[in-house]
C-alpha cells in the first residue's frame, strides 16, 4: 500500500523549524539557494529524531469522511542525508497494527527501501519502489509531500518577497515525471516554515494547495501541527493534525529493523 508517502510529509511538517540566529531585517534577502536549503532542512531534518501522532481526515466532494490515525517515528542517519521512518497504524481498524517502514535514501538515483508488516499473517513484506506522485494511504497527500522532494529535481526562483514571506517558484527539470507544471512555496521569513504550497498544472491553472494552518513551538522548534491539502480538480480535502509531538527522544537505529516491525516499540504504540 501507498502508505509510505505520508511519512515524509509528516516529517517535513512536524520537524522543528530552523531557528535563525537573528531575525532577518526586511531589507536583507538571502540567496535563493540558502532559502530553499533552510526551508528543506526545517521541513525534513530538524532534531535527530521525532515522534508524532497523526490524525488524517479525508473529506470527499460529497462530504463523506474517512479517517487515518497513526504514530510516526523518524530518525535521521545524518542531517540532510538518509532517514528512517516507522509508521504504526491505529485507524482505520481493518489496518490496525499494520506497520509501514521506510529507509529513505537522499541520493537521487537510489530508491527508498520500504517494508510493510501485516500482523494477521505475521508477514513482513518488501514493497517495490513506486511513483512518488501517488496518494499516501488514499489521502490527498502524495508520497512526495510526505517524504520530501529533492531540491535537485527542480529549478528555484525567488518570485516575491513581502514583510512576512519569501515566495519561491519551483519548475521541474523533468516535467514528464510529474503531473504539475510548477509550484510556488510561500516560506515564513522568520523561521523558514513552508506556509503554503500552490501547484499549477501544465496549462498554468491552480489545481492543488497545501496550507500550514497552525504552527506551535515545541521544544523550541516551530512545528506545523495542522495542515490541509485541497485538490481543486476532485474537490477532495485532507486535513492532517499532529499531537504528542516530541523531538530528540533518543530512538535507536535498531528500532527500524525487522525485529521491531514484528513487534513495534512502545513509542509507536501509544
Amino acid at each position, binding site marked *: 500500500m501507498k502508505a509510505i508517502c505520508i511519512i515524509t510529509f509528516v516529517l517535513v511538517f512536524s520537524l522543528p523549524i530552523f531557528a535563525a540566529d537573528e531575525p532577518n531585517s526586511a531589507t536583507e534577502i538571502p540567496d535563493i539557494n540558502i532559502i530553499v536549503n533552510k526551508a528543506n532542512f526545517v521541513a525534513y531534518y530538524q532534531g535527530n529524531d521525532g515522534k508524532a501522532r497523526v490524525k488524517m481526515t479525508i473529506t470527499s466532494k460529497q462530504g463523506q469522511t*474517512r479517517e487515518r490515525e497513526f504514530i510516526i517515528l523518524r530518525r535521521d542517519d545524518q542531517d540532510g542525508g538518509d532517514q528512517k521512518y516507522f509508521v504504526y497504524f491505529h485507524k*482505520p481498524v481493518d489496518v490496525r497494527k499494520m506497520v509501514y517502514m521506510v529507509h529513505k535514501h537522499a541520493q537521487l538515483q537510489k530508491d527508498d527501501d520500504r517494508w510493510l508488516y501485516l500482523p494477521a*499473517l505475521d508477514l513482513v513484506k518488501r514493497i517495490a519502489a513506486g511513483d512518488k506522485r501517488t496518494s499516501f494511504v*488514499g*489521502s490527498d497527500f502524495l508520497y512526495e509531500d510526505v517524504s520530501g522532494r529533492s531540491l535537485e529535481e527542480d529549478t528555484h526562483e525567488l518570485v516575491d518577497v513581502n514583510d512576512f514571506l519569501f515566495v519561491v517558484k519551483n519548475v521541474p527539470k523533468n516535467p514528464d515525471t510529474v503531473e504539475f507544471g510548477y509550484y510556488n512555496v510561500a516560506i515564513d521569513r522568520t523561521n523558514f516554515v513552508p506556509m503554503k504550497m500552490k501547484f499549477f498544472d501544465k496549462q498554468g491553472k491552480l489545481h492543488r494547495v497545501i496550507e500550514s494552518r497552525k504552527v506551535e513551538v515545541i521544544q523550541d522548534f516551530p512545528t506545523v501541527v495542522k495542515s490541509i491539502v485541497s485538490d481543486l480538480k476532485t474537490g477532495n480535502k485532507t486535513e492532517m493534525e499532529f499531537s504528542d509531538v516530541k523531538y530528540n527522544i533518543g530512538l535507536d537505529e*535498531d528500532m527500524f529493523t525487522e525485529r521491531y516491525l514484528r513487534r513495534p516499540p512502545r513509542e509507536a504504540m501509544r
Partner: protein
Amino acid sequence: MTQPKTAATLLSAMWFAAAISLPAEAVSDNAKAKRSFFSNLPEVEIHGFYEMRAGYRLRKDRYEKDMSIMENRFQLDLSSYLDWGDIKFKGDVFGDLVTEQADFDLREANIFTRPFDFMDLKVGRQVLTWGTGDLVFINDLFPKDWQSFFIGRDAEYLKAPSDAVKVSLFSDFANLDVVYTPQFDPDRFISGERISYWNSNLGRLAGEDAIIHTDKPNRWFRDSEIAARLYKNIKNYEFAIYGYRGFWKSPSGQNAAMTQVLFPDLNVYGASVRGALGKGIANLEIGYYDSADDQGGKDFLVENSQMRYLVGYTQEIGRDFTAGLQFYVEQMLDYRQYKRNLPAGPAKDRDRHVVTLRLTKLLMNQNLRCSLFTYFSPTDKDVYMRPNVHYKVSDNLAVEAGANIFFGDYQHTFFGQFRNNTNIYTGIRYSF
C-alpha cells in the same frame, strides 16, 4: 479440517483472564486493592469484525454440495500491554451452512515478552510466517489452511495458527529465530470435506464419499517440530538460512494397507535472499526436502525427497498498479526409484514447474482494490486463478467478491484435481 481443541481454548481463555488480572492481585493492602481494583486493571483493547460470506460452485460436483461457503463469522481480538509484556487473544466463532455446524477457531492466545535486550519470546498459540515467496512456501513450514484458501475465505485464513514457543535472539553478527512446537501442527489439508480431490487409491475424483483418514503424529514432545531461521540484513539485502525437523505438513504417505494417510518424517534445509533490483524487489529461495522415512526413494508409499527453487520479482508497472512474477520448481530426487517402484496409475513428472503472476490495481482513492493471482503449471498443464474485487464502503465496512477458478488437462495434477471446486463468492465485513 478445523480442530477446535476446546480444552486448550478454554485453558487459554482462563489463562488470559488470570494473566491480565495479575497486577491487581499483587496489591497487598486489601482496602487499597478494592479501591484501585478497576483502575489497576490493565487496559484491554477490544476489536474484531462481523462477516457474512456466501459462495457457490460453478460446476456440478457429484461429491460435494453446490454451496461452497455460507458463513457468518464473528472475530474478537483482545490485546493488553503490560510492563513485562503483551497479551493477545483472538478467536473466531462461526456458523456455516455447508457443514451445518457452529465452530470456534482460536487464532491467537499468546504472551510476548522481551526478557533481555537481545531476546524476544512469544509463547502460546500464534500465527507464524517467514520466507520470501508470495503464496508459495518453501522454508515456511508453519501450518496452512488450504481448505479456507480454496473456498474463498479471507487470505488471512491461509495461515493456520501454531501452538508453539518462539525464541528470537539478536546480535550484530546475525539474528536467530527458533520455533519449537511440542505437538505436530499439520496443515488443514484437503481431506475430501468441502473440496473434492484426486484419490489415487480409487483412481478417480472423490470428496465427501472418501474422507481421508489420517494417522497423525500426536504425542506431546516426541512428535514435535523445530524450525529455525538465521538471518541478517546487509545493506537492505535480507539473507537467511533455514532448518526444519518435523513432518510433511500435508499427508505425503500411506500405511501398507493403504487405509490411512501418513505424515512421514521431514527435514528441510534452505536459504533465501531478498532485496532491491532495478526498479523492483527480487527474491530467491531454495530448499532441500529430505524425506527421512524414504531416503532412497524406494518406498512408493512415502513421498520422495525434493529440491525446491523459487525466484520472484515485483515491480510497480503503473500508478497504483503492481505486478509480481514468480517461477517455482519442485524437483523429485530419486526419480528412477520412484518410477521403478510405482504401482499402477498415472506417474508424476520428475519436475513440477509453476509460474505465478500477481496483478493488483488500486482505484477510487485506493478504496477499490482489484487483484488477480494466477498459478500456472506448464508441466502439470493446470491453472488456478484467484480474482478478487474489494471495496471499502467506509472506514468500517468493506464488501468483496471473488472466485477460485481451477482448470487442467488431467484429473490427477495439483490444481487440475480441484476443477469441480471452481467457485465464486461474495462477502461483507464490518470491523470495529
